[in-house]
């Protein structure tokens, strides 16, 4: 039998009913998690609405504005997707590490390293500036992936070899990554004393839909770039790895019960290193995609905390790669539209409320709520 069910105390005297939480003994039906998630978002929007009216705004108008500003037309939706692109990749990276219960909170640093790797190809230059796009893209990708994977390898190796806590190492390596980039921005690739590199040559840019506006007029002004395709493909690949590959099985087994994995003869150390590298590689790819798809130069402010938002996204998506895409788009919308209402403040609070509601709603998946009549007659 399960543990003691929690009961509410004081209300008993006034109400002949009690609310009781019981641990679920059976699996919930497939539609239930989705319904709970939607319910949680509705509750969060309601709470956010109260907040907006307290601040003197009109909640309905504000929400309508948010929706319009992020999904209202093709142009803004394209901007939402641009914001979502790095989130998808970083979210996938976090999700695969979390699957094995490796708490990689260094995606931010891996993202910066990925951006650095791609920049190095253009700025060192590893490829001559007149190289064609078809050559730039794979080489930049490779550089970004390798740099990110390296940033994942270090904490992975330390964890596997010396059992160093990866939370601390990944967190600390974020600072190193930012400082590393700054060094190059300030000292090596600085352009005319500004803290940024020169603009990349056009052939090193990821193609955008707008580039094809001449052929397809509908694409005019659309900023969506090839990085989105990377993100979508990566989601498919990660899904296959996790649920259909031998390696994914090992990852899932280690994540759920490392002792059972050891008993089944699985090499945990090797997987620790490999998974941290894959996680870093995905975050690095996000950095590469952002730098060559959006920023087009190496500079200080390339991430409004994508690496950390990725942690939240992985968690909200329950580590499911396809859910990562959807959650990333919603977060992309919130980031984009939030700025429309207020640069900071209310939109960020609403983000926070949604997050708390979603995480709290998880309780309903694990427990059943029952309302019971009090039976005793004494």
């Amino acid at each position, binding site marked *: 039998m399960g543990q003691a*069910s929690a009961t509410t105390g004081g209300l008993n005297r006034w109400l002949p009913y009690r609310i009781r939480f019981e641990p679920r003994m*059976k699996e919930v039906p497939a539609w239930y998690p989705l319904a709970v998630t939607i319910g949680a978002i509705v509750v969060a929007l309601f709470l956010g609405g109260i907040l907006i009216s307290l601040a003197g705004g009109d909640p309905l108008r504000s929400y309508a504005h948010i929706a319009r500003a992020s999904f209202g037309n093709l142009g803004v939706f394209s901007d939402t997707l641009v914001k979502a692109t790095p989130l998808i990749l970083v979210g996938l990276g976090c999700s695969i590490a979390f699957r094995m219960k490796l708490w990689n909170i260094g995606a931010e640093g891996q993202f910066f390293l990925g951006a650095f790797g791609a920049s190095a190809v253009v700025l060192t230059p590893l490829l001559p500036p007149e190289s064609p796009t078809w050559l730039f893209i794979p080489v930049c990708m490779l550089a970004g992936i390798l740099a990110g994977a390296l940033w994942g390898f270090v904490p992975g190796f330390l964890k596997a070899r010396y059992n160093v806590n990866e939370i601390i190492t990944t967190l600390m390596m974020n600072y190193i990554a930012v400082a590393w980039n700054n060094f190059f921005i300030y000292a090596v690739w600085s352009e005319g004393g500004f803290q940024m590199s020169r603009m990349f040559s056009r052939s090193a840019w990821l193609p955008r839909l707008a580039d094809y506006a001449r052929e397809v007029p509908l694409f005019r002004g659309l900023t969506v770039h090839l990085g989105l395709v990377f993100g979508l493909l990566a989601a498919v690949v990660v899904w296959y790895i996790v649920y259909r590959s031998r390696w994914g099985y090992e990852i899932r*087994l280690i994540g759920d019960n490392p002792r059972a994995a050891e008993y089944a003869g699985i090499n945990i150390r090797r997987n620790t290193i490999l998974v941290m590298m894959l996680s870093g590689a995905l975050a690095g790819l996000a950095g590469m995609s952002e730098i060559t798809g959006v920023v087009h130069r190496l500079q200080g402010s390339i991430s409004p905390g994508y690496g950390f938002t990725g942690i939240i996204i992985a968690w909200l998506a329950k580590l499911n790669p396809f859910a990562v895409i959807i959650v990333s788009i919603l977060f992309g919308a919130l980031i984009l539209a939030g700025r429309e209402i207020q640069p900071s403040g209310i939109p960020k609070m609403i983000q926070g409320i949604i997050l708390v509601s979603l995480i709290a709603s998880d309780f309903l998946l694990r427990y059943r709520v029952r309302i019971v009549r009090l039976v005793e007659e004494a």
Partner: protein
Amino acid sequence: MSESQATAVYNATSSPPRPPVIQMLGIVKRFPGVLANDHADFEVLEGEIHALLGENGAGKSTLMNILAGLYRQDAGMILLRGKPVTFSSPRDAIQAGIGMVHQHFMLVPSQTVTENILLGLDEPRFLLRLSEFDRKVAEVSERFGLKVDPRAKVWQLSVGEQQRVEILKMLYRGAEILIMDEPTAVLAPQEIEGLFTTLRAMAAEGKTIIFISHKLQEVMAIADRVTVLRKGKVTASGVPARGMSRAELARLMVGRDVLFHLEKEAKTPGEVVLSVQDVYAENDKGLPALRGLSLEVRSGEIVGLAGVAGNGQRELSQVITGLRKCLKGQVWLSGELVSNKPVQFGIQRGLAYIPEDRHQVGSAPNLSITDNVIMKSYNKEPIAHGWMIDMTAATRFAEDLKEAYEIMAPTVRTPARLLSGGNLQRVILAREISGKPRLILAVQPTRGLDVGAIEGVQRLLLAQRAAGAAVLLISEELEELISLSDRIYVIYEGQIMGQVTDGNIEKIGLMMTGTPLSQIETGD
């Protein structure tokens, strides 16, 4: 003394009856999907040791959790000395003199015994004058023969001592009625005897004890009267333990006849499959656990390894499977050296391992039955398909095993954590045996299972013996070892004391306490 005490109570029940101290009438308790208690009646007399017997999941713990104020019944009433009572928390119950000692202890390891006992009490109010309370705790422990140092920190205590602290906690709070939830599950054989002595002493002092168990021999040894539960219903209410045979109790518990004597066909053992030669290994704390241990298991025989827990059994199983380093000596599996090789090495060569701990080692709780049964075969054809796993093949494999081993679950996608102990053990056995192993290393394979499930596991092991597998059975249940094994080795402090082939329980007992067989024989 215990004899006379028991008969005294027995007489008291037959002649002018003692008043019942507790009556639970028509208790109904529903859990999602389960009717845990179905109009259960339960009556306990003052000063007796009353056993509550039933299989796992029969509703014993639920019924007692209701009595202890942890759950509330959906219907029915509780009378305490004839007066109806309702408890809305364990606090209410303990105030009425009812205390429960749970299977899993609720102690703070870093605090002393006295501190743990005082935890949650109103006294002392502000200043902790510990020495004074140390004395009070010592007094109580003296009175009931519960020897434990009040000043010791809980983490320093053995499991048996921790249990005593839990009992003391209840006695200190003035419990008159003590509910013990499967108290022997965590104890070594000698500790069990110590516990029984304590319980008898407490009963002699006028305390009433309710003893929850699914082990027949214990119930027969300690209880004055027995109530048997099956699937939430009472099948025998307050029958004197002495008037019952084991077979009768087992039938009441399981609902059908249980075979105590398994049919074992004669078989001549074949070639040597497992050979452990002069093995040395350390335990987790870096202390010597195996000290020159040697043994052999042949194909077609079950070899038992008897011994008090903690004498190196765990370490031996880990050395054989490759989970622990072998410092000296060798382990050979069918002529191949397997010690200090990767775990996979043994698995590939037909080494099946049924670990002691089903939940923490043998299974992954949140993964599906399918994922759990492919644990040893996910990297082999037909389930492996290059780098990928063929999910259709894996599902088919799991469904076949589910049917063949009668795993009760809605689908093979059900997570392992939702399975009962017996079903989970079937999942593990199905996985290990389906690989047609050469050697089966089974550690406590029936521990914590109910009578019906135990029988199933034992039959499977015998079937493997008949199929020509070598079986090394490590167990603390002597009875099980004797009925299943062809030979029994006895381990003591990491060494083999000797082996018996005739199931002589006296010899085994002497060897378990550290007398080598050679000495026993010359002593005769």
